[in-house]
């Protein structure tokens, strides 16, 4: 019903989608976060994701449990990459299925928004002239 994965391997997006498609599901929403080639006009060479693994998984679980308590969902899959990612690579996939689209859209948005606020995963952007841990400084 719920599948959460932190992985150093490339994320298999079609597989994430297949996992949530059930005969009783009519609406599926999928969010895919990829590595952008620029931040505030500066070229990004690559990203590095670091996770506090057990706590990150447990915080994602909490978010998914909260989402399933609020909306009538069928299945939820959250896969998040760790390690070094090149531009264009998939950093996160959130796939949500429900009987109707409203629950799928709303829950998918809730999960990614909350994940970005509470889950102990850190992103370092590497530029031509240096690197920075995102969100650390004002």
């Amino acid at each position, binding site marked *: 019903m719920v599948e959460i994965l932190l992985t150093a391997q490339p994320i298999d997006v079609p597989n994430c989608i297949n996992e949530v498609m059930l005969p009783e599901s009519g609406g599926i929403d999928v969010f895919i*976060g990829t590595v952008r080639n620029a931040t505030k006009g500066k070229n990004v060479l690559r990203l590095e994701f670091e996770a*506090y693994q057990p706590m990150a998984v447990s915080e994602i679980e909490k978010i998914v449990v909260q989402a399933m308590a609020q909306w009538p969902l069928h299945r939820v899959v959250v896969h998040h990459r760790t390690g070094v990612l090149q531009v264009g690579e998939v*950093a996160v996939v959130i796939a949500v299925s429900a009987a109707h689209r409203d629950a799928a859209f709303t829950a998918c948005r809730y999960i990614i928004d909350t994940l*970005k606020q509470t889950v102990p*995963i*850190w*992103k370092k952007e590497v530029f031509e002239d240096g690197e920075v841990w995102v*969100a650390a*400084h004002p």
Partner: protein
Amino acid sequence: MEVSILAFGIAKDIFSGPATSMVLSRGATVGELKAALELKYSRLGLLVSYMIAVNNEYAQDDLVISERDEIAIIPPVSGG
């Protein structure tokens, strides 16, 4: 008692490694740990904010720490 504190993200740079250790009085709280850390590592104060996790849960300042706890410093997260 001596406790070990795991570091992630920018906290690894601040601690110059993936963990640091602090000597605290028995019965010390998370708030006391934070004060001691900020005294030892002044760059912590330059962060937007940071949290302490105890046994994989975000901890409030009044939580009492024991030597067996898994303690981690959680600088501002940026996953997704």
